[in-house]
């Protein structure tokens, strides 16, 4: 391993490390703009210049120079100071002095580094270049005169997003960053280029002129828009969520988040339920909490426990579901969490987790997707699969509809029967799987909500057993789409008849009372005959046939525990308080239980959690990927030849928050080709 000295400090680094990384290991900060850990090396900003001996007597770009044995790197000499001042002066030649009106102001790499390494004054008196604004879609606002051509955004589009539509056209002083033909950057992760941009050239369009970074309260929390459990930071001011940014978690979202995670937050301020409602004379009317609870208590008298059903939505936290389960079961009813019609059983954890782990994708050497479109179900996870695929060490095959996943997959056919062939070895991909050391099979929800789903699960189970790879590698993976699902399955919130059993029962009159905790992706017209209590944050599908509405808070407004698709326990924090009379969901169940005379045995969230952890010990281990023992699951049977249907048909509107978001509407329109609705650029004409 090469050993070198950085400013006299000796460091030993892995072969292949660059000088810049070696400096970081030695605790020396090197300024940079174009270099980014997760992107390829460009070496074009020149900010990271250092002195290196032995070598030619000239500055060396440390980001692109491999660390060699015996190198002496100097970063604190007068010469290096001059290099940096020189580079900074060049970078600032064409950069406008508009920091006071720039959204990047206060969190700008260029601003910070010119303070730290720049000379303070410019000697440039000639004309500056002005670059026209470019249209890049509804999420990215461009002020291209500020661009310093680091090409981070271009490399992100090529390498991470897999949507190579950004590029640098022209050359020299006329070089400009643009999308092809100024079309929208058609990625589900487009917003990340705003974070990557080290200057204010690409800023967030929905966040334009909304706030300054120093006015914001930062809350480190967990995202619920998909089942990945991306780590996010919610920035709020007063009672409003201003934006969501990614936090780094190497084993979950690295440092990316999807556009829905980032930009659906404007839906948190719209269509909110801020007070209880009771249906009187066929119309929903405002009510007090006492009246609402009274109406529920009245209806529950004379209803048998077996006639009560609970339905859990996709965004619920574990605490709410736990309180709901205790309350409904104390009344004799049962709770169902699979509102999408999934047949997934809750018996064996290994049978419904993403067992290989999200980070396991980095080691996989063959991936088989079944009924899943990860690009829509979890864009960040899809980008990780793409990263693995790019190494050419991991072929990816797909059983299901042929969709563009941003990488090339081997299309095996859109029929569950293909799985039988793979199991029998009558498929090319069976060879790939059998040679693989760490094969992964990823079942999407599209494979789990069919009549033959249990047989598909059994086939996937057997394929894993037959081609399972080596050691304790578990290649059976379920990619969930609901943030609540794994915790709900852990708590056994499943009923024999599934969601159809409840909907049929409500139509037939067997189910008299339905308690709906934020489930908005089902046909509530079928619940019309039952007495429906809807508890949730948004006025969406769920309230349409509700008889009582109890206002809950959204994920940014409550502390809560979420288990992601791997079964990783993550705890979210409250960023702001909910609107009006909306309350945290568990407190509503607690208050209602008292009215019903079935008082739940906790008075605060700490008590609730300690009780929950006693019942479900796995919830107490925060932020670790569980390793569940292999088990028998699935039911052998015939599979049909029907094609798969992906469950997320509308990525931009898959939950009530996203459906309330205007930004998501704009994204959907842009993706459907209604480009440039607002004109080509802001400076046309």
């Amino acid at each position: 391993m090469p050993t070198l000295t950085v400013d006299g400090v000796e460091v030993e680094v892995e072969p292949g490390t660059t000088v810049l990384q070696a400096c970081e290991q030695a605790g020396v900060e090197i300024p940079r703009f174009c270099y980014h850990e997760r992107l390829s090396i460009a070496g074009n900003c020149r900010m990271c210049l250092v002195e290196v001996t032995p070598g030619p007597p000239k500055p060396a770009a440390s980001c692109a120079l491999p660390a060699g044995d015996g190198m002496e790197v100097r970063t604190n000499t007068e010469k290096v100071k001059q290099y940096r001042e020189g580079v900074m002066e060049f970078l600032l030649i064409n950069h406008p002095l508009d920091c006071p009106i720039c959204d990047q102001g206060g969190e700008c790499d260029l601003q910070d580094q010119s303070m730290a390494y720049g000379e303070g004054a410019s000697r440039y008196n000639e004309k500056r270049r002005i670059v026209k604004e470019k249209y890049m879609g509804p999420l990215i606002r461009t002020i291209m005169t500020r661009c310093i051509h680091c090409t981070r955004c271009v490399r992100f589009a090529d390498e991470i997003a897999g949507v190579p539509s950004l590029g640098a056209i022209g050359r020299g002083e006329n070089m400009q960053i643009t999308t092809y033909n100024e079309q929208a950057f058609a990625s589900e992760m487009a917003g990340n280029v705003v974070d990557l941009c080290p200057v204010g050239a690409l800023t967030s369009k929905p966040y334009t002129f909304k706030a300054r970074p120093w006015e914001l309260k930062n809350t480190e929390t967990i995202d619920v828009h998909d089942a990945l459990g991306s780590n996010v930071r919610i920035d709020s001011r007063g009672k409003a969520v201003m934006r969501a940014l990614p936090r780094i978690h190497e084993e979950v979202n690295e440092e990316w988040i999807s556009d829905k995670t980032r930009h659906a937050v404007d839906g948190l301020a719209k269509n909110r339920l801020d007070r209880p409602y009771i249906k009187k004379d066929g119309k929903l009317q405002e009510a007090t909490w006492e009246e609402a609870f009274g109406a529920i208590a009245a209806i529950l008298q004379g209803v048998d426990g077996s006639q009560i059903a609970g339905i859990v939505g996709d965004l619920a936290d574990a605490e709410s579901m736990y309180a709901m389960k205790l309350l409904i079961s104390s009344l004799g009813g049962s709770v169902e969490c699979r509102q999408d019609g999934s047949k997934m059983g809750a018996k064996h954890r290994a049978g419904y987790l993403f067992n290989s782990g999200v980070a396991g994708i980095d080691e996989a050497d063959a991936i088989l997707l079944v009924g899943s479109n990860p690009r829509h179900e979890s864009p960040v996870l899809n980008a990780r699969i793409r990263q693995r695929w790019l190494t050419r060490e991991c072929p990816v095959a797909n059983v299901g509809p042929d969709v563009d996943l941003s990488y090339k997959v081997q299309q095996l056919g859109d029929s569950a029967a293909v799985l039988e062939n793979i199991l029998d070895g009558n498929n090319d991909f069976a060879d790939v799987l059998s040679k693989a050391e760490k094969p992964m099979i990823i079942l999407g929800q599209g494979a789990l909500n069919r009549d033959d789903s249990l047989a598909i699960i059994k086939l996937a189970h057997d394929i894993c057993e037959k081609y399972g790879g080596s050691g304790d590698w578990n290649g059976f993976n379920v990619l969930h789409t609901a943030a609540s699902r794994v915790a709900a399955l852990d708590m056994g919130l499943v009923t024999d008849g599934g969601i159809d059993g409840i909907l049929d029962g409500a139509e037939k009159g067997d189910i008299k009372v339905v308690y709906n905790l934020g489930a908005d992706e089902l046909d509530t017209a079928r619940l019309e005959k039952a007495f429906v209590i809807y508890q949730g944050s948004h006025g969406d599908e769920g309230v349409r046939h509700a008889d009582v509405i109890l206002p809950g808070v959204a994920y940014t407004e409550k502390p809560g525990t979420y288990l992601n698709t791997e079964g990783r326990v993550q705890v979210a924090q409250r960023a702001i308080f909910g609107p009006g009379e909306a309350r945290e969901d568990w407190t509503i169940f607690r208050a209602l239980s008292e009215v019903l005379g079935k008082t739940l045995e906790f008075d605060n969230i700490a008590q609730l959690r300690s009780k929950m952890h006693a019942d479900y010990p796995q919830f107490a281990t925060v932020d670790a990927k569980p390793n569940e023992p292999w088990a028998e699951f699935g039911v052998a049977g015939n599979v049909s030849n029907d094609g798969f249907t992906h469950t997320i048909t509308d990525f931009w509107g898959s939950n009530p928050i996203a459906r309330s978001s205007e930004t998501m509407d704009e994204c959907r329109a842009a993706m459907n080709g209604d480009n440039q609705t607002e004109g080509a650029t802001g400076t046309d004409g």
Partner: protein
Amino acid sequence: MSMNVKDTDSFEFTPENLEWTKTQFAKYPENRKESCVMPFLHRAQEQNNGWVSVPVMEYIADMLDMPYIRVHEVATFYSMYNLKPVGKHVIEVCTTTPCWLRGSDDVVRACQEELGIGFGETTEDGEYTLLEVECAGACVNAPVIAYKEEYYEDLSEDSTRAFIKEIKAGKTPAPGPQNGRFKSCPIGGPTTLKDRAPAGAEFGGGE
């Protein structure tokens, strides 16, 4: 030069050019066929009346399995790909330092006055396009104009006017130095090593 790309008619290589593309594909491994992009763009420009349109770029990108933006980047990077329609006669004037020192400003003025257009412009009848180019690599005969794959060298204001008048008259002017000089030999014959001039050496333009 505008970098905006606008849609125009569709484009396809002629059968002869398609046949020619095979010779280019043969130069590179299958997984490196993007390397053909520059010769393809050049050939397409010839076929497409001297300019590279959006359909040209997309056609070539599809041929080479490249994202459209990558071809667009190449086409905009090199100044010898014209990104908007040009006239039948493209006159390229070099204004880089050696040509400028030797009077390219006069040559430029002569061209602009004779044609009535500025750099990057095309006459209204679509006949003439005037372009400013970087070093043409013929500094020894500066100042230089490139026209129809030939160089017109050692220009003055008058010889430039004469050159353009000849084009306008439908003739093809004789390429090379326009001041009577032979190639890049000293005008008026050798000035040094006179005694060692090889027998029969030509110096052109001598007394």
